[in-house]
């Protein structure tokens, strides 16, 4: 199982949207079984995939990241995973692919605080403790999933650091603007070496792209500096509608969901499959 962290210092650059798009397109168009770990207390990915109602149900059933962390990983992680976490009919109908999620809820903030406090008191790094907690559980799922996408919170919280440490590769979504580009540079220059992740394959996805005289040179700069997955995802209000799920019993087709962005989302997943998944599959020792 390949593990990819979707991470960046800056918020609002499309980490959750990229996670959802990649998961659904890789599942449907490349027959992948995908597990998403939503480590972000904002829980955007969980709301996008399960709806608010679905997240509330997962919370009440005790099946969230909060419960996994509070139980200190004593039970198997699959006890907390919500299977069939998509509203795309074709994925739900096909047994050869899947999009499942360990959902987050905002209470993760407080649980993270508690874990951090306990770890620091005992002289440990909370991120390393989280890695230690997750590692055997992810190993136990390696024969169930082709791919694990970890949606990390913005910044450098313990959960973000753990997500990056757990990953075999990192994807950083970014917007082609000066602030996001500088933040990305800081993440790559300072963050990845600090997490001993600077040797891991790192890719960039350009999101919310609006072709203009000011954005095109920045996109060119990003392309010449980083391994950019193509195509850029255009800015579109349709993406907001695509990634919103009103109810957990509402379903649609992939085409209806992504509409005018469908071809771009499929092409982006194809590029990720070629550049990240395929090379990983040909290196058996890294599995």
């Amino acid at each position, binding site marked *: 199982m390949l593990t990819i962290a979707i991470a960046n210092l800056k918020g609002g650059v499309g980490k959750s949207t990229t996670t959802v798009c990649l998961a659904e397109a890789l599942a449907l168009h490349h027959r992948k079984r995908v597990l998403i770990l939503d480590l972000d207390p904002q829980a955007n990915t969980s709301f996008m995939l399960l709806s608010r109602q679905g997240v509330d149900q997962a919370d009440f059933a005790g099946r969230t990241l909060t419960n996994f962390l509070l139980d200190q990983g004593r039970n198997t992680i699959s006890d907390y995973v919500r*299977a069939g976490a998509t509203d795309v009919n074709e994925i739900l109908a096909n047994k050869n692919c899947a999009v499942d999620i360990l959902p987050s809820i905002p209470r993760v903030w407080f649980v993270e605080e508690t874990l951090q406090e306990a770890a620091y008191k005992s002289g440990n790094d909370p991120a390393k403790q989280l890695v230690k907690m997750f590692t055997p559980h992810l190993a136990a799922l390696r024969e169930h999933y082709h791919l694990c996408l970890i949606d990390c919170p913005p910044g450098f919280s313990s959960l973000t650091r753990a997500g990056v440490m757990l990953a075999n590769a990192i994807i950083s979504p970014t917007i082609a603007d000066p602030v996001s580009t500088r933040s990305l540079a800081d993440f790559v220059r300072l963050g990845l070496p600090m997490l001993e992740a600077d040797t891991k394959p790192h890719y960039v996805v350009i999101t919310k792209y609006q072709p203009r005289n000011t954005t095109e040179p920045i996109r060119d700069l990003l392309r010449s500096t980083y391994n950019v997955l193509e195509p850029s995802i255009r800015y579109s209000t349709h993406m907001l509608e695509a990634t919103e799920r009103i109810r957990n019993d509402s379903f649609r087709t992939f085409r209806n969901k992504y509409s005018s962005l469908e071809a771009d989302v499929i092409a982006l997943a194809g590029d990720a499959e070629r550049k990240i998944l395929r090379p990983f599959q040909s290196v058996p020792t890294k599995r």
Partner: protein
Amino acid sequence: MAEVDLYPLVRNYLNLEFAPSLKPQRGVSLPLVAITSNAAGADAGKWSRPDLALVNLWRHKYQPSFTLDLYGFEVKPTETCDLSSVHETLAHTRLVHFSYLVWQLGEDETESRRLQLIRDNCEAYEIGLITFAKVDGLHRFKVHLNCNRRNPSPSVIDEFIETRFGSREKDRLLAWLERQ
């Protein structure tokens, strides 16, 4: 692979594929899986201990009351599955509503005579059969036969859950029953 080493694998399958398939499309469900092979019980003999159990509390959207279904799973590694495994699985039907034999298939056994024999016997006794094997690096499970629902008395079901599930699972079940 020893039988006990297969339990986590089967547990993951039950959580990630089998249990979700039980959810009504518009209703709600709470499936909980436990490894019960070493759990206590009023009668904890060899033929009265499914290796894993799944309790599923569910309700259709426009249905006023919940249904509780209890599933038992007898896990067998490649080499140890035979007719007595079928009989052992059948014996569990006095404790659970649905009883399944879960068998790890060996190489080239997807069309074997042994599979046909086991399948025919499961069919005759109206118990479930699930097999699994590694395909392209992933374990793929296949439900060959579903089990016809049995009707052990509610007190037997209660006793099973009370003595073989952990306090965490029981608390969740009770919380759901109280809230819904």
